[in-house]
């Protein structure tokens, strides 16, 4: 049986025919649409490397069936820059060395964009750390990541 899905991916409408209901959003993006920014770390919702925005909210794409997301608007790391102009969170990650190997970085940045949209931290250090706890970084770049998120919030008044 084939399932036909209408999705908006990084602003563009897509019609997707799925031959298998087992495909997660992560596998759809990576294996079928060749958007490999979202990473498959644990594939079990524990590491956050697969974080994307669905209708503006950050979720783990590894634990979401594509077939259940008819009509959804999806944003991946490929869709956050404006041409050659990086998203402010991307820029802040570079400025604060918010990564080393870079594997967790797309998930970290998408999670940070989601965090800013949720507007729960007020740029407070402990609240930012708590609200980034769904993203693991095995290189231990947490300090730079936290600084980058706080700087973005403060620079933009982004949470206000």
């Amino acid at each position, binding site marked *: *049986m084939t*399932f036909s899905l209408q999705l908006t991916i990084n602003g563009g409408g897509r019609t997707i025919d799925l031959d*298998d*209901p*087992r495909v*997660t959003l992560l596998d759809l993006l990576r294996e079928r649409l060749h958007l490999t920014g979202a990473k498959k770390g644990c*594939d*079990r*919702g524990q590491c*956050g490397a697969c*974080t994307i925005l669905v209708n503006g*909210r*950050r*979720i*783990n794409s*590894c*634990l*979401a*069936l594509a*077939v*259940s997301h*008819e009509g959804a608007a999806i944003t991946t790391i490929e869709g956050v820059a404006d041409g050659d102009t990086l998203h402010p969170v991307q820029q802040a990650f570079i400025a604060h060395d918010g990564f080393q190997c870079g594997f967790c970085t797309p998930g970290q940045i998408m*999670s940070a964009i*989601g*965090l800013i949209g*949720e507007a*729960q931290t007020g740029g*407070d250090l*402990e*609240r930012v*750390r*708590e*609200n*980034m*706890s*769904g*993203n693991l970084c095995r290189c231990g770049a947490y300090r730079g990541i936290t600084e980058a998120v706080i700087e973005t919030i403060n620079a933009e008044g982004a949470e206000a």
Partner: protein
Amino acid sequence: MNRFDYIRATTIADAVAAGSQDGAAYLGAGTNLLDLMKGGVTIPSTLVDITKLPGLDRIETLDNNDVRIGALVKNADLAFKSEFASNFPVVAEALLSGASPQLRNAATVGGNLLQRTRCRYFYDTASACNKRAPGSGCDARGGDNRLHAVLGWSEACIATHPSDFCVALAALDAIIEVESREGRRDIPIVDLHRLPGDHPDIETMLTPGELIVAVRVPAAARALTRHQRYLKVRERTSYAFAVVSVAAALDIDGRTIRAARLALGGVALKPWRADAAETMLIGAEPTRASFEAAAGAALADATPSGDNGYKIELARRLIVRGLARAAAGTPDRLPALPASPFATLAGEIHHG
């Protein structure tokens, strides 16, 4: 993951009809179900997608001042709904102490109630587990069982229920609305989950295909708004299941406790309501001595199921701290680390 048939239900009646068939499972967000299916722990033949069912995503105050939460409301949306969180802060604190922001954005209220134990022997299909494979035995007995149950367990199963949300709901006497082909009925949340006994594979009072459609928090819980906390001991600061947790809510009139609610997480295969402790607290003064006596009563029947005797003393101490924090007053804003037992009280107190 096994192959399965996929059905997208558009009415509750259609969902229940499809969900009542052998091998069917309901799909909410799937944050627990897909994890289990990827590991081969559960192998449903049909997934009935309920995420498009109308009317189950609302939080509404009923005429009698109960609050009714649709089963498809996201965990984060409930915790961040200020009118709800300010009236039932123990629920918001419990929700925000669980999982990660990404998971809370996806996971539903109904799914939270029906999430499965995180016992590693349940997850490991090479291990004996009476819950996953009835009659196969329990490798947690004699295994790595530091985190297992100390109340209500049986020789067949020593697993715990992982939900924080359910513990807070149990303290507030929440009611679960369920629908089956026979119609709709209410189940008190304290009766929803079963203790393991000889049949740990039968986890709830739901009949096959019965669908959770809503959770109601009774208006009576509003009397406890000013004095309630959720505290949770974890093995890391955040994003971890409870070793032990406590939901405490008090109604204090001057120096006398008028009403008390106490529920424990991480100690049993269901959210554990500590009735005997509550009885001792009613009419008592909110003092450390009262809280210690209540804590003793709450754990009076506890016994280790393995290398977890420490949890009994840990639970007693967390009860004392939880009751003391509740008596001190609900903070005007949730602490930076929700449910942390280590947070200081400074600056948190709004209500006298």
